[in-house]
C-alpha cells in the first residue's frame, strides 16, 4: 500500500463523517435524501482526493527525511 492510497482511505472516511458532524452542529440540513446523498458523495470524493494528495506529500517528505537519516548514519 502506498502513502497516497492510505491517505485517500482516511480522507474518504473523514469526508463522510464531517458531513454528518456538520449536520449535528447545525451547519447542514440532512432532512431530505437527495441533497444528503449529494453531500455525502461530494464529501467522500473531496476527502479522498485531498487525503491522497496529503498522503502523497507526507510520503515524499517521510522518504526524503528517511533517506537523509540513512545518509547521515553512513
Amino acid at each position: 500500500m502506498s502513502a497516497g492510497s492510505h491517505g485517500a482511505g482516511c480522507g474518504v472516511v473523514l469526508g463522510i463523517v464531517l458531513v454528518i458532524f456538520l449536520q449535528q452542529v447545525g451547519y447542514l440540513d440532512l432532512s431530505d435524501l437527495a441533497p444528503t446523498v449529494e453531500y455525502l458523495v461530494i464529501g467522500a470524493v473531496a476527502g479522498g482526493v485531498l487525503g491522497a494528495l496529503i498522503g502523497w506529500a507526507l510520503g515524499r517528505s517521510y522518504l526524503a527525511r528517511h533517506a537523509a537519516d540513512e545518509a547521515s548514519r553512513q
Partner: protein
Amino acid sequence: MHSPRTRRVEPALAFAALAIVALLLNIPAPAHASSPVAAVSTQPGVSSSGYSVTWNGVDVATAGSASSAFSVDLSQTASLWYNWSTGVANPVDISDARLQMFYLGFAVSTRDQVLTNPTAQPSGSISLSWTPVSVAYLLEGVYRLTASFLAPNGTTMWSENFYIRGTAPLGVAAVLPIVLLVIIVYEVYGLARSGRYAALGRKVGESPPATPPSTSTAPPPSTSEAAEPSAPPTDSAGGPAPPTGGGS
C-alpha cells in the same frame, strides 16, 4: 486476508455504521396515538390560508428555513397548537393533527393527536405536546418537521414544513457528535501517519519477486545428475538380490 489499511479502516467504518444504525433505531418514537381529544373552537392566530400551527406560541411559518430554525432543547416538552378557520361557508372535517420529524428523507418520528368525533367545523384548535426524550441524549442538529392536518379518510388537508435546531442537554454531550468527533480524530491521526506507508510501500516494491531461496541459490542440475537420482534401483546396481525360491 486483510491488508493493513483494511484492518485499520474497518473499525472506523464499523463505528460509523454503528452510529448510523443507532441513530435510525433510537430516533423513531413510535406513532403515538394518544388519547383522543375534542376540538376546541378557538383559533388564535390563524393565517390567511385558514390553517396555522404554533410552536410554544410562535407560528411555525417563521421557521421555514434551516437558518431560521427554532432553537429547541430536545429534553423539553414542546407545546403545539393546530388551528384552523376556514369560514362558516367552508367547514372542514379534521380528524388528526400530525407532527413528523425527518432525517435523511425518512420520517423518523411521528406524533398524532386524534379527535374523537370529527365533524365538519368552520374553525377549531387541537393541542399537541411533543417530548423527544428518546433522542435527547443521542443527537442534536437541524431537523425538518412537518405539521399537518389530516381528514378522516387519511388525506392531508394542509401541511407546513419548519425547522428546529435541537441542542443536547449539556451542550455537545450527545452521543452521536461525540462518536463522530472520535472518528474524526482517529482518521486525522491516521492521515498524519500515512507518510510512514511510503517506506512500507518502497520496501515492498524493492523486494525481489517471490521465489523460493533454495531454488535460486542451488546450481542448475546437469543432465547426467538429473537422470541419476531419479533412476530407480535395479538388480544390476549391486544391491542385494531378492531371494529365489524352489531350488533346493
